């Protein structure tokens, strides 16, 4: 995908101004804690993605890129904080410059802004997981299985997959609920039709027999076939069709309602009480109620998130991801509330369907009483229908349900007082009506039958549509889950195999048969690792912290390999192997070289030994590494191997900052002493922890160069090369003078005194100190290329030389 060529970082995080030439190669940045290493990682991440992982995610509330991305002295001038990256797009073979400012994080300037370039960089910007910190490793190694699933899904950006699944599941549930409601409507309208036709089942034969009997009596053509479009009253005059009252049918409708009314007090009682129980639970636990109310609110908010500003309160966030994570974390806390919510809505839907059934019985009576001018009864029923309609809408939401407790505890249908008496009176009135003539009875039978047949057919159509929609949603949800499970299982299988392979490579000495198992299940991801063939255990059970660090990096690499395939060309590892021991780090270098030969890693470490190991393993070189010796708020990271160190020190002295200058000088001496001890094969007293004081290290280096110059002079003399011998002796003498001069000044860079004494130093006091050490270090350098070194390395080298061969002194004395 990409490789990093170089970076210019200005006023970002702890950095004032820094240029790094990455040269598309794996690169290491070392330095003590707080020296600015992670600031480089943050800046590159920002340049590539517009995000800074350390300022987002869990535990970073209150942090934003806008406020905390710039150097602390530039927070009011975000325009001054920017990153300029030169990136090589491997797939396109193009070099691109990305300039991204803090105050325009989402609007980088890209040159050239070709469409193909923009497409690749948009893809990169979508992958903040290219940066890995130790904190993130621990997030997916030492977490609960439920959290691990989320963490790994987060690093692979799989949340979207879960969001789609959830949306499809909600769709499926909503449409199944709608289908059940439609079924009840069919059942109700069908019942009304059957009651009218006096048939037991809705079969074409029974319907046509009832209908044709009346049609025959009226002299109308009999209907031969019953279809969805059949008009049972076809042939009736308009006036006959308009007359809807059919005495016998009316009496049957009245009886149906009367019969049903006897059981109204028991309808849905158990369901209503289940809702009441849930509502009481909410009353007892205000926190649960709060979570429930917030849940609906937050769910809505999450749906509406579209940018870094909260859609609920307009609070600006660092970015959209940060805001979404925040809302999602709140939702996680209300899992119990979610279960309660599901139960309430499901039971509410059951009662809604009961209301549809009751309404189906009431509606024909209400219409009949209206047409028969029974105004009071019509109004009573109309008022009840309105009340039930209002109740139905309240049953559809948690908010609505929370206000229904009192009603659901009693007669939740709220059957009007006097319904029974009114029904009886109205029935008596209908019964008292003179019987209709056979013709009138047949006409009204057909017109009423047609009206109900139409309602039934419409309900059936809606039910079929609802079923089709529900079936489609169910098929979609099932298909999605099946595909998702298959893909994720394949992903985890590939990841676990590579993870085991990488971990074995690092720990071949003691865990050569290591295996691991990632087991996904509903909402969980169990992670078992083999411990010396004793079985699979959680990573934190028996393995040491160092091994766990190793596991974290291996799991990350396995995930990246699966995620990017051959396009995994760039990653930043921020102090991620700090607990891994020396031998295993060497194997880690080999792993990166062999398994990821085309990936450019930017690796930071606070451990100097690890940085040097990377060099000796040839993962990096002196050119592809950088060491920070310290950091100050004014200067940002101070680079150890900085060629301009003397100019920097002079600048600091020019500003009267003697303390900074002295610290820079000491750090530089520490750095150079380590380099020279290695390059010249010095023999300082051994320290098992690898920590050497400047004094003993510098003395051993001075002694070593003195010895080497002596050996070189002896060699030149033995070969009869007097000119060379004299040249070497002259160098040795100059070196001795410089060493003596610096020895006088060494107290000034003594760690024990510097904080107190430097405060009293002036520029002129310290300039001779700097000059003495500069002269001394120049004795170890070739003026053209850099530090001297011996070849081969070891106690008995054959030559003392520089990289360009301008200086090359034979150390072998001619045999006699």
């Amino acid at each position: 995908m990409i490789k990093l060529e170089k970076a210019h970082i200005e006023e970002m995080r702890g950095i004032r101004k820094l240029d790094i030439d990455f040269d598309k190669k794996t690169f290491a940045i070392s330095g003590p804690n707080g020296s600015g290493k992670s600031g480089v990682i943050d800046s590159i991440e920002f340049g590539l993605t517009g995000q800074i992982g350390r300022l987002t995610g869990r535990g970073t509330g209150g942090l934003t890129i806008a406020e905390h991305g710039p150097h602390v002295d530039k927070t009011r001038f975000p325009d001054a904080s920017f990153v300029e990256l030169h990136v090589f797009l491997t797939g396109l073979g193009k070099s691109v410059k990305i300039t991204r400012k803090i105050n325009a994080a989402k609007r980088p300037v890209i040159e050239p802004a070709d469409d193909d370039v923009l497409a690749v960089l948009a893809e990169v910007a979508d992958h903040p997981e290219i940066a890995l910190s130790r904190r993130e490793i621990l997030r997916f190694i030492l977490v609960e299985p439920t959290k691990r699933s989320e963490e790994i899904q987060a690093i692979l950006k799989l949340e979207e997959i879960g969001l789609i699944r959830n949306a499809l599941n909600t769709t499926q549930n909503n449409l199944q609920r709608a289908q059940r409601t439609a079924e009840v409507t069919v059942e109700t309208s069908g019942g009304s039709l059957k009651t009218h036709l006096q048939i037991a089942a809705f079969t074409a034969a029974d319907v046509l027999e009832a209908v044709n009997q009346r049609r025959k009596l009226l002299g109308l053509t009999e209907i031969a076939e019953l279809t969805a479009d059949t008009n049972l009253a076809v042939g009736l005059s308009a006036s006959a069709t308009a007359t809807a009252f059919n005495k016998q049918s009316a009496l049957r409708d009245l009886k149906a309602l009367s019969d049903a009314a006897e059981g109204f007090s028991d309808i849905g009682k158990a369901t209503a009480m289940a809702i009441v129980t849930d509502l009481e639970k909410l009353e007892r636990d205000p926190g649960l109620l709060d979570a429930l109310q917030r849940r609906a609110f937050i769910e809505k908010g999450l749906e509406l998130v579209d940018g870094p500003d909260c859609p609920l309160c307009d609070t600006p966030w660092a970015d959209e991801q940060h805001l979404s994570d925040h809302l999602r974390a709140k939702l996680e806390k209300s899992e119990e509330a979610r279960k309660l919510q599901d139960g309430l809505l499901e039971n509410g839907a059951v009662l809604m369907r009961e209301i549809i059934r009751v309404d189906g019985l009431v509606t024909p009576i209400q219409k009949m009483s209206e047409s028969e001018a029974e105004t009071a009864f019509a109004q009573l029923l109309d008022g009840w229908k309105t009340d039930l309609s209002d109740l139905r809408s309240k049953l559809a939401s948690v908010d609505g349900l929370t206000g229904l407790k009192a009603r659901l505890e009693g007669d939740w249908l709220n059957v009007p007082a006097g319904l029974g008496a009114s029904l009886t009176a109205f029935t008596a009135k209908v019964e008292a009506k003179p019987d209709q003539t056979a013709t009138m009875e047949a006409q009204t039978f057909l017109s009423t039958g047609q009206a109900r047949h139409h309602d039934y057919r419409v309900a059936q159509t809606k039910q079929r549509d609802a079923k089709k929609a529900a079936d489609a949603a169910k098929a979609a949800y099932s298909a999605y889950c099946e595909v998702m499970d298959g893909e994720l299982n394949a992903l985890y299988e590939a990841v676990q195999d590579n993870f085991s392979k990488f971990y074995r490579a690092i720990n071949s000495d003691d865990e050569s048969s290591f295996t691991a198992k990632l087991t996904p299940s509903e909402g969980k991801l169990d992670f078992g690792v083999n411990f010396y063939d004793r079985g699979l255990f959680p990573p934190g059970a028996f393995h040491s912290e160092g091994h766990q660090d190793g596991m974290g990096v291996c799991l990350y690499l396995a995930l990246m390999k699966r995620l990017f395939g051959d396009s995994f060309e760039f990653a930043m590892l921020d102090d991620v192997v700090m607990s891994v021991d020396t031998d295993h780090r060497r194997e880690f270098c080999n792993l990166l070289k062999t398994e990821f030969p085309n990936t450019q890693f930017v690796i930071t470490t606070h451990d100097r030994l690890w940085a040097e190991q990377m060099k000796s393993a040839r993962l990096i070189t002196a050119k592809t590494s950088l060491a920070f010796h310290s950091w100050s708020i004014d200067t940002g990271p101070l680079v150890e191997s900085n060629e301009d160190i003397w100019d920097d020190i002079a600048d600091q002295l020019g500003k009267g900052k003697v303390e900074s200058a002295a610290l820079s000088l000491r750090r530089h001496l520490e750095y150079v002493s380590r380099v020279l001890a290695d390059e010249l094969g010095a023999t300082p007293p051994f320290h098992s922890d690898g920590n050497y004081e400047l004094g003993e290290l510098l003395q051993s280096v001075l002694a070593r160069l003195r010895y080497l110059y002596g050996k070189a002079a002896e060699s030149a003399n033995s070969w009869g090369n007097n000119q060379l011998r004299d040249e070497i002796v002259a160098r040795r003498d100059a070196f001795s003078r410089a060493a003596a001069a610096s020895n006088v000044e060494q107290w000034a860079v003594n760690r024990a005194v510097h904080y107190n004494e430097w405060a009293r130093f002036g520029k002129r006091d310290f300039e001779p100190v700097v000059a003495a050490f500069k002269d001394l270090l120049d004795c170890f350098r070739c003026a053209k290329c850099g530090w001297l070194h011996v070849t081969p390395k070891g106690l008995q080298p054959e030559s003392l030389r520089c990289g360009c061969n301008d200086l090359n002194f034979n150390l072998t004395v001619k045999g006699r």
Partner: protein
Amino acid sequence: MPTIQQQIVEKFLAKLSESEKVDPGKIEKLRATLAATKKPKADDFVKIFTESDGGNLK
């Protein structure tokens, strides 16, 4: 290289096209919705499954 998300969506739509329960028109609408947003809402899907030949449920 397609992301895992894209792979899942493509395979999902391909699998769905084998189902008699979902007609091709709806599958294309699903494809368009999933291409347009990474965070589709249930309402978006309800609309797809219920519109035209699916009725107009609320």
